[in-house]
């Protein structure tokens, strides 16, 4: 055992419930519990529902931490050790079906808990993380014994961070991601109600969960929850009623679906103009790059589209994060990965030219994408022209950005689409003539060479695209 002092780093996203707190010690993810939370944990381990959920991979594996692991001076009654989540993501980076599956996991866990005299004290979408395309509940501190005659305390939060975003997309065809990204506590009923007027009030879930809920919140703003709990108990609120409420929410979740949209990117793989020979050459190049050194722990696939190269990378890496801008494309990819039972590819909605910033308290409660991206390999296939021409990002900036996403010594596989390529020409046609004189293959190659080492290159058979393997910023 190492005897050198290890650094204790409190998890910035874990402070809202003072009874327990997550912190990092080296590579370990630990959770400190106060006396009451420790008592709840002991009851939880003795329950039947909790070990079953952990065994099914639906709740993150957790065990009592050996006392030797806990640094001196940590003021907790008990300390737990959680399994590591390979890549932490936020609900505003998920697609519609991802958020819906996270919601269904939450309600399934709540139902199982209620049947065993437990409940969850909150209902946040942030309670869920992912093992690839499988959602996993992480907030062990949320479980507590249920008190008879009381409704679910997490319902309001569940509406704000899960149900209202889903209503927005399912009923109005509006992407929820920007709304969730803007407000760490989710969407307030009063913000959404004006959008659901007229006959839209009659869409599933709107009248009760949104309008009635919003009106009730306003009418009861002055009443304390302690009084209301007592009044509900006196009026006969029962466990059966609570269970039927949860079942009602589940039924609604099953009815909500994404409205099909005409997505430009949905056809990309078909229309992007690759020949079969190009594709084979590209796959061989990527495979060679990923198998050249030690097995990568984390691979970022930037502009993943239908996930072809993410799946390829998953064969040679521990975990792949497939980043794509179009929520509809990510949703299709997620559904496909879920059907394949893929646990090592995580699809995320993210605009590379406007990635998730830090959010919440002091801007660190929800870490920005750049803070989380520390990849051993980055695939940037057919994205550079979208950033450099489509979004006017200067080419040197694009290369610097690629270097910033990687751990030292990491591999970058980057595709440069020549200005003569049909896709580049299509992008250039929408811009004033002569705006990008430096968008040339030789200029790009010089930038890569100036920031690292090019270890391999391949011109694709079509002759208008070049692949590079490079180690940047070492």
């Amino acid at each position, binding site marked *: 055992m190492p005897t050198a002092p290890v650094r204790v780093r409190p998890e910035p996203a874990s402070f*809202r*419930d003072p009874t327990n707190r997550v912190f990092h010690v080296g590579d370990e993810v630990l959770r400190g519990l106060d006396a009451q939370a420790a008592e709840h944990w002991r009851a939880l381990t003795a329950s039947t529902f909790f070990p079953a959920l952990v065994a099914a991979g639906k709740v993150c594996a957790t065990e009592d931490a050996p006392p030797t692991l806990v640094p001196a001076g940590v003021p907790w009654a008990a300390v737990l050790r959680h399994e590591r989540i390979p890549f932490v993501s936020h609900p505003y980076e998920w697609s519609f079906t991802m958020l819906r599956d996270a919601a269904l996991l939450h309600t399934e866990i709540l139902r199982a808990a209620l049947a065993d005299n437990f409940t969850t*004290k*909150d209902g946040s979408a942030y309670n869920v993380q992912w093992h690839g395309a499988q959602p996993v509940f992480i907030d062990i501190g949320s479980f507590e014994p249920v008190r008879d005659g*009381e*409704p*679910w*305390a*997490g*319902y*309001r*939060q569940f*509406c704000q961070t899960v149900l209202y975003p889903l209503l927005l997309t399912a009923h109005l065809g509006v992407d929820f991601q920007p709304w969730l990204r803007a407000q760490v*506590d989710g969407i*307030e009923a*009063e*913000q959404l109600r004006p959008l659901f007027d007229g006959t839209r009030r009659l869409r599933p879930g709107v009248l*009760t*969960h949104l309008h*009635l*809920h919003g*009106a*009730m*919140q*306003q*009418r*009861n*703003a002055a*009443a*304390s*929850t302690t*009084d*209301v*709990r007592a*009044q*509900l108990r*006196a*009026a*006969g*609120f029962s466990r*059966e*009623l*609570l269970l*039927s*409420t949860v079942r*009602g*929410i589940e039924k609604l979740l099953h009815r909500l679906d994404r409205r099909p949209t005409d997505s430009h990117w949905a056809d990309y793989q078909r229309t992007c103009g690759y020949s079969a020979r190009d594709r084979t050459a590209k796959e061989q190049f990527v495979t060679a790059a990923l198998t050249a050194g030690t097995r990568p722990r984390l691979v970022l696939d930037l502009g993943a589209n239908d996930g072809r190269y993410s799946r390829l990378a998953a064969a040679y890496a521990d975990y792949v994060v497939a980043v794509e801008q179009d929520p509809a494309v990510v949703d299709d990819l997620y559904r496909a990965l879920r059907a394949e039972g893929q646990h090592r590819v995580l699809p995320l909605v993210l605009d590379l030219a406007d990635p998730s910033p830090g959010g919440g308290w002091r801007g660190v409660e929800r870490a920005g994408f750049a803070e989380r991206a520390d990849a051993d390999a980055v695939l940037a296939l057919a994205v550079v022209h979208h950033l450099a021409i489509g979004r006017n990002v200067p080419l040197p900036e694009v290369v610097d950005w690629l270097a910033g996403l990687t751990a030292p010594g990491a591999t970058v596989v980057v595709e440069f689409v020549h200005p003569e390529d049909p896709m580049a020409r299509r992008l250039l046609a929408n811009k004033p003539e002569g705006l990008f004189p430096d968008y040339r293959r030789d200029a790009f190659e010089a930038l890569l060479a100036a920031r690292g080492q090019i270890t391999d290159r391949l011109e694709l058979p079509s002759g208008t695209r070049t692949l590079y393997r490079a180690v940047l910023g070492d």
Partner: protein
Amino acid sequence: MIHLAYLDAGSGSLIVQAVVGGVAGVAVAAKLYWRRLVDRFRRQPTDQR
């Protein structure tokens, strides 16, 4: 807009759950409001809230 604290279940959010729960729940909510009404009449005029 009402900004509620974290881990504050919200009074209105607790009551509306009864209604969401179906017919039996509506009866519970009705009972709660009926009791509040009766309570108010009983307390008048000495206790104006």
